[in-house]
């Protein structure tokens, strides 16, 4: 008989091993799914994980694209991970990302066609402030009225989407766009464009910001009292209270930081790879970042790796779609398996498998 026995402390080894095991299990289960769809599983897995990095025709293009795709995921996930560690559940990063993009792009477009070096920094600040302000809504409602931040932040995503649609056809619409929705293309406005810093590398300011965020989060969590409070509040809320952690301040800090980072991610995206505010500018980075945060074990370095892995499955998944004719839904299922196996693997972190009969205590 197999029993699960709770470990007195989560196993460090299993905590490190489960992400790797989850990836392997996903490859196996995904391979079976691809085989059932009538595709060669080995070729499909190779197309997803190997070709974007090493294919002679694509790799030179798709390797930098990994950074472009991973940048916003990492930046958002770092912010979310702080809150998740403290038990503050910001599910609405997608909305904060949208508002950040709107505010940042709005500031940039307000100065069009003026060319000046300070426009882009101002856009970054506006993007961060926009995301921060949007996250403050669930934050203040939570600290003042004890509302549930999961629901409020999630529902605000849909409000943000409507606001964006309205902006794309109204206030921010390109006056030279022949009446079509969508703002001017910021890529064509030098002072506001978030171009590659070194051509051909995919490295734009958003990727730089993501790397800086990883370093800061690491220092914060390991060397700073706020980081200690965050971890304490998550692991032992009562002890945190006794040691003088003010829950309201902690909640506002976590939501504020994650909102600001998501807002910046939105700004970097709209000024760079995406180029313009459109009716459906957002593509779900804010939600995918939740997966990335957990896949990375809420640890800054883990999130960095998880973001790159997630980007790889996106880009490889696209290749698999048009090279092998796999349906898009199969790729999404494949990504879903990754999270599923990871969470399943967490059982091993917290529990021990025991064979034999339960002993009567």
């Amino acid at each position, binding site marked *: 008989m197999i029993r699960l026995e709770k470990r007195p402390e989560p196993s460090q080894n299993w905590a490190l091993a489960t992400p790797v095991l989850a990836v392997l299990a996903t490859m196996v289960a995904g391979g079976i799914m691809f085989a059932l769809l009538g595709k060669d599983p080995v070729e499909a897995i190779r197309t997803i994980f190997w070709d974007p990095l090493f294919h002679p*025709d*694509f790799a*030179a*293009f*798709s390797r*930098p*694209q990994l950074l*472009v795709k991973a940048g916003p995921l990492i930046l958002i996930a770092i912010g979310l991970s702080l809150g998740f560690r403290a038990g503050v559940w910001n599910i609405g990063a997608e909305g904060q990302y949208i508002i950040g993009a709107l505010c940042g792009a709005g500031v940039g477009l307000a100065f069009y066609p003026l060319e000046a070096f300070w426009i882009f920094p101002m856009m970054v600040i506006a993007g961060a402030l926009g995301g921060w302000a949007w996250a403050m809504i669930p934050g203040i409602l939570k600290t003042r009225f004890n509302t549930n931040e999961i629901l409020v932040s999630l529902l605000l995503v849909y409000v943000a989407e*409507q606001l964006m*649609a*309205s902006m794309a*056809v*109204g206030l921010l*619409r390109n006056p030279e766009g*022949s*009446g*079509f*929705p*969508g703002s001017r*293309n910021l*890529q064509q406005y030098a002072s506001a464009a978030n171009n*590659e810093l070194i*051509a*051909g590398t995919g490295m734009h300011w958003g990727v730089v910001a993501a790397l800086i965020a990883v370093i800061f989060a690491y220092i914060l969590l390991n060397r700073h009292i706020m980081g200690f409070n965050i971890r304490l509040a998550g692991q032992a809320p009562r002890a945190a209270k006794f040691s003088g952690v003010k829950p309201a301040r902690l909640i506002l800090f976590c939501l504020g930081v994650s909102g600001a980072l998501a807002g910046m991610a939105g700004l970097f*995206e709209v000024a*760079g*790879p*995406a*180029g*313009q505010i*459109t*009716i*459906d*500018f957002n*593509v779900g980075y804010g939600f995918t970042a939740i997966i990335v945060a957990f896949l990375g074990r809420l640890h800054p370095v883990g999130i960095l790796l998880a973001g790159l892995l997630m980007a790889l499955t996106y*880009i490889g998944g*696209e*290749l698999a*779609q*048009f*090279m092998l*004719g796999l*349906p*898009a*839904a199969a790729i999404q299922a494949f990504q879903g398996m990754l999270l599923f196996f990871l969470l399943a693997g967490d059982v091993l972190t917290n529990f021990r498998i025991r064979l034999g009969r339960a002993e009567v205590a």
Partner: protein
Amino acid sequence: MFRRTLLAAAALAVASAGAALAQDPIKVGFVLVGPKNDGGWSQHHYESAKKMEAHFGDKVELVVQESVPEGADAERVMTQMALSGVDIVFTTSFGYMDGTINVGGKFPDVKFEHATGYKTAPNVSNYSARFYEGRAVMGHLAGRMTESNQIGYIASFPIPEVIRGINSSYIHAKKANPDVEMNVVWIFTWFDPAKEADATQALLDQGVDVVLAHTDSTAPLAKLQEAGALGFGQAADMAEYAPAPRISSIIDEWAPYYIERVQAVMDGTWESVSTWHGIKDGMVGIGEFSEVIPEDVRAEAQAMVDGIVAGTYHPFTGPLNKQDGTPWLAEGEVADDGALAGMDFYVEGISGDIPN
């Protein structure tokens, strides 16, 4: 700079490989904004692509990427397709426009075809359909068939394409029935069955008994069926709802165009063009008029279709005023394509504002 030379070199390699192996099938790429079985817009592009594939058999190889978000993701998909040796890429959503132009600039030897936009480049064409011609016919039917003199219109996004459809429908409903009034509901989505059903219910509650929709699902027809009201197929024939509530339909027919353009690539005669085809060229299909429609009304509608095909009738013929009463087209004057392409106003008689 490095990236551009790199891509250019890759493009060159692809192109020379293509020339060396002239017997190889033409590789045709499609980028779809929705799932290929969404029942509406993307499905029609996909099915048309399959018809094109069936037409050419082994001479073409079809690669399709579905559910591609507009923006950076679309550009990456197009670039990867070009790098993989695709000869011609059809990008089938308005939001792919800037991306198509960008990627087209990097791959001068690959042909690009962008649907429903307005930009072109030496290797980028655009194409769209004159759906307003079909709307005119549906508008006429709506005006004739309504008993409450209240017709409804479910609109998606306030873009010229949608506004043209509303105006064209209204003008012809009003001509057919001077007492008619039209309610427009904006739902800001192309495909959301729940929202479309809600909008239909809202219109029904206002006393509307014929509904036109510029959204892609069959949800409005399902709702109309319950209520015993009438509607039209949109993008697809939606014949499963015939003879009522679906009394006719506007059908997207892209296949002839795809066959023509791929043939041009094969023949080496491909040139960048702006195509705006209507009923005459088969890009806009009119679904069968159902038996619910009285015979004389069917004949009137058919006469309108024949007139449009023959070129003797244009749906936007003056006298027409703008909503605020300012004159737009004088007696007998016909709207030019430029004015139609950027249409951002209602014609006189429609109540309410275009949201912005």
